[in-house]
């Protein structure tokens, strides 16, 4: 029995901090609720520090090998903390304005992070599942937190029912794999088993794989398992959408990598075909339907579906190059949408909510800096150089062509060409249209604003010198 708990110290600390927030919240008055924000930020910083301290270059295992701390886990957790920290800076004013400033918000938010941490570090299919559920249940609660809003309630309901279905599919698939491999839940044991057996003819294993893939892509939001995304993006408060649109994507991608690469890589001929098909559908539906949207959150929801199609393509190459491209794509995508949601959140002040695309009309005249930031975000999402999004797409295309999927690459660029239209429309609305809405907003505090500007600048800088992040992603995979 390996009962080493050192690698899991960050998770333990995070759980303790959550308890602390809940305790403190019970004792402070309504006017001092902002202390929760402080504790959350401190929690993230201290977890980051502990994470750095527990690192060593060798893969560490804990809890009877169910918990793993390898370079992938280490790296992606650090990215998660940084992104979460920025998210808190972006949303704290919004939360106060919208009276969402209850202790629960941050406690639940940290539960989301904890779920992500567990998912990223799980080496056992059940632990992966437990992490996923921790994340999902916390997210359901976050969506539902805005309970006076009928749309939020509807979104939470949909999210919960569909999410439970997705989890059910996953669990069902896991149980088949468990049976087919003679009772294995550890990912490396599954690999060992598949080495010995005649995989393509093992119907039970492939049958289980289909359900596992269905459950996984449900969480990523690939077509046809995407129905929940637009509704949840639209129905949630912007703060929650920011969380769902950024940090949880990291978790989703690592989750899929853990399952499919660390566990079921020998079944890659089967699952890469599935991912290819789902990716083709996602790019199509995501890009075409996004054109018809008038709500910017819904539009970004469909755009996420299309971007996850790219992620699926990166994974289906089953090459080191492809997987590291996928991670690179995810990190760039998360940074880009972080700036986008951040700008929208900061524009939504007081009772005003920046939701419809028309709300951005003439933004370049009233708020040139926010308009400039959203401009960079949109061009980056569209993949126009010299912005970071270009290299993300470029890496995926390169990985696809390197293994001979030229037709798929061509399809991909045609779809991103269609996708460029709705990103351009946002720029058009901000720069070419006259503003109709009087947007006189009190300024958000200077720290949040400078972080947002820095965030947008990062997109430009990474568009000019992307090699550092590329090397980082490669190290996570090959290390």
């Amino acid at each position, binding site marked *: 029995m390996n009962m080493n708990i050192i690698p899991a110290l960050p998770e333990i600390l995070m759980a303790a901090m959550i308890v602390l927030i809940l305790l403190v919240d019970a004792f402070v008055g309504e006017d001092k609720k902002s202390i929760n924000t402080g504790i959350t930020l401190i929690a993230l910083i201290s977890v980051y520090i502990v994470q750095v301290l527990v690192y060593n270059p060798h893969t560490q295992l804990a809890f009877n090998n169910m918990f793993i701390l390898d370079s992938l886990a280490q790296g992606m957790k650090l990215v998660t903390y940084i992104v979460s920290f920025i998210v808190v800076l972006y949303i704290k004013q919004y939360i106060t304005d919208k009276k969402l400033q209850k202790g629960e918000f941050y406690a639940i938010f940290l539960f989301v992070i904890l779920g992500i941490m567990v998912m990223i570090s799980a080496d056992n299919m059940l632990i992966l599942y437990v992490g996923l559920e921790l994340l999902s249940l916390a997210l359901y609660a976050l969506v539902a937190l805005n309970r006076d809003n009928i749309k939020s309630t509807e979104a939470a309901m949909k999210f919960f029912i569909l999410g439970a279905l997705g989890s059910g599919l996953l669990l069902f698939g896991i149980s088949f794999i468990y049976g087919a491999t003679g009772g294995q839940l550890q990912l490396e044991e599954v690999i060992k088993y598949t080495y010995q057996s005649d995989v393509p003819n093992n119907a039970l294993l492939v049958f289980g794989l289909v359900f596992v893939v269905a459950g996984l892509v449900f969480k990523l939001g690939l077509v046809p398992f995407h129905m929940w995304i637009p509704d949840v993006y639209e129905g949630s408060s912007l703060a929650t959408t920011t969380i769902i649109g950024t940090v949880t994507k990291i978790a989703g991608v690592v989750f899929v990598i853990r399952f499919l690469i660390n566990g079921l890589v020998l079944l890659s001929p089967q699952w890469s075909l599935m991912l290819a098909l789902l990716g083709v559908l996602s790019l199509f539906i995501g890009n075409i339907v996004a054109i018809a949207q008038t709500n910017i959150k819904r539009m970004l929801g469909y755009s996420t579906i299309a971007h996850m199609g790219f992620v699926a393509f990166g994974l289906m190459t089953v090459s080191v190059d492809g997987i590291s491209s996928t991670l690179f794509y995810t990190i760039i995508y998360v940074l880009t949408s972080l700036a986008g949601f951040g700008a929208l959140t900061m524009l939504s002040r007081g009772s005003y909510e920046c939701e419809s695309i028309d709300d951005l009309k003439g933004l370049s005249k009233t708020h040139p800096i926010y308009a400039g930031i959203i401009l960079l975000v949109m061009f980056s999402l569209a993949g*126009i150089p*010299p912005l970071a999004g270009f290299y993300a797409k470029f890496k995926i295309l390169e990985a696809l*062509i390197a293994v001979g999927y030229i037709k798929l690459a061509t399809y991909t660029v045609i779809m991103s060409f269609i996708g460029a239209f709705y990103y351009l429309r946002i720029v*058009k609305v901000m720069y*070419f249209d006259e503003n109709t809405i009087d947007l006189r907003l009190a300024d958000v505090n200077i720290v949040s604003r400078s972080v947002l500007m820095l965030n947008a600048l990062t997109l430009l800088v990474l568009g000019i010198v992307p*090699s550092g992040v590329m090397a980082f992603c490669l190290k996570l995979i090959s290390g």
Partner: protein
Amino acid sequence: MHYLLSLTVWTPIIAGVVVLFAGKNDSLARLISLIGALIATVLSLIVFIIFDASISGLQFVENIPWITSLHINYAVGVDGISMPFVFLNNFITLLVIIAGFKVIKFKVALYNSMFLLMTGFISGAFCATDAILFYVFFEAMLIPMYLIIGVWGSSNRVYAAIKFFLYTLLGSLLMLIALIYLYNVSGKTFNIFAYYHTQLAMVPQILIFIAFFFSFAVKVPMWPVHTWLPDAHPEAPTGGSMVLAAITLKIGGYGFFRFILPIVPDASRTLSGLMITLSLIAIVYIGLVAIVQKDMKKLVAYSSISHMGFVTLGCFMFVGNSLNTWAMQGAVVQMISHGFVSAAMFMCIGVMYDRVHSRNVADYGGVASKMPIFATFYMLFAMANSGLPGTSGFVGEFMVILGAVQVNLMYAFLAGLTLILGAGYTLWMYKRTIFGEINNKHVDEMSDVNSHEFIVLFLLAVSVLVMGIYPELFIAKMQLGVKDVIALAMQSKL
């Protein structure tokens, strides 16, 4: 000296970023832009002068590793074909900034900054010898142009801006696929010159040709993918039209020289008949379309398409396996000349538009009596646009026709029709707007050119005449570059 080319490329970009932060201070923004553009023009002029015409191949080469994991380098260098365009590009931008000095009053900093950024990106595309570096510059220029058309354009500007962006984006995305394919088959390198000696079978060659063709034909623009241009031009502000016609289109033509002919020579030979047909359709049919235009800018836009038809025609004049030297040189000269002439034509229309706020031919008449100096300049440019000997417009067209005669008399005959059509649409428009009775009271209130406009028109007039009378100045510089392309297009990669 070592970093001269990088300096030329980056000076306008840095100036553009600085101007962007000038914010509300209009006069400061104008001053910085002028200085930035002036420095860049001088630098590119120095490059032009010290460029050694007796050496073939690249000069002013710089090569710095950029993204090592993908073997992408920051590699720049110019040869005889790209070098004149770097100068043309900076020169036109300088003129655009002078021309906009008084006219642009709305978001001055953003306007000037976008032009400077675009100049830098365009120079970068001409100088890049790494495929991805080229692609980055090639795509990046879409962003400023999109904003220029969309923010400062006229009534239908939004439609035009989006159409322009999407058309050019589709082409360049397909090119990206071709470039990544070439990267994989040529042993993991993005050096454009390495592709010149990569063996390729016929089917991949044809597919790569199509991918490149989409990308560059849209930019040129060739018939039938030209439809974005007549929409974009009328809606763009004067400066935007000048840059669009004078430089952006040239990148399309340049692509034929740098990418298509040397990389896929066998496919080029196979498909040359198709290319010649498309070019001739552009020259004759689009020339006819130009005659009936009522909008002056649309007319010049169509005339641009027709003139650019000569460039693509000159690129595909194969005699057996080898390209005709006259036609090839003519194509380059035609590009440079068209850069000056089309910029001048749009400038003239812009001068009239600023006074009367109409692009309609019918709203003018009798301008000569109110603006004699302007009418004189305009006359010169109109003559150049119709290809009068002694002006730059004549040289390129004549050389291409001369080359065509050696290949096929029918091609030469059809291409020669342009001399009639060109004179028809340009001079007829000139007659209707400049001569005759004054029917419009706004025309009656017109005043002659101011000092800024005079400088711009004068510089353009000098360029047009110098190129017309002594084209050797340019031809000598590009001769060896053209010869290299001809040699590369002769090889077989099968």
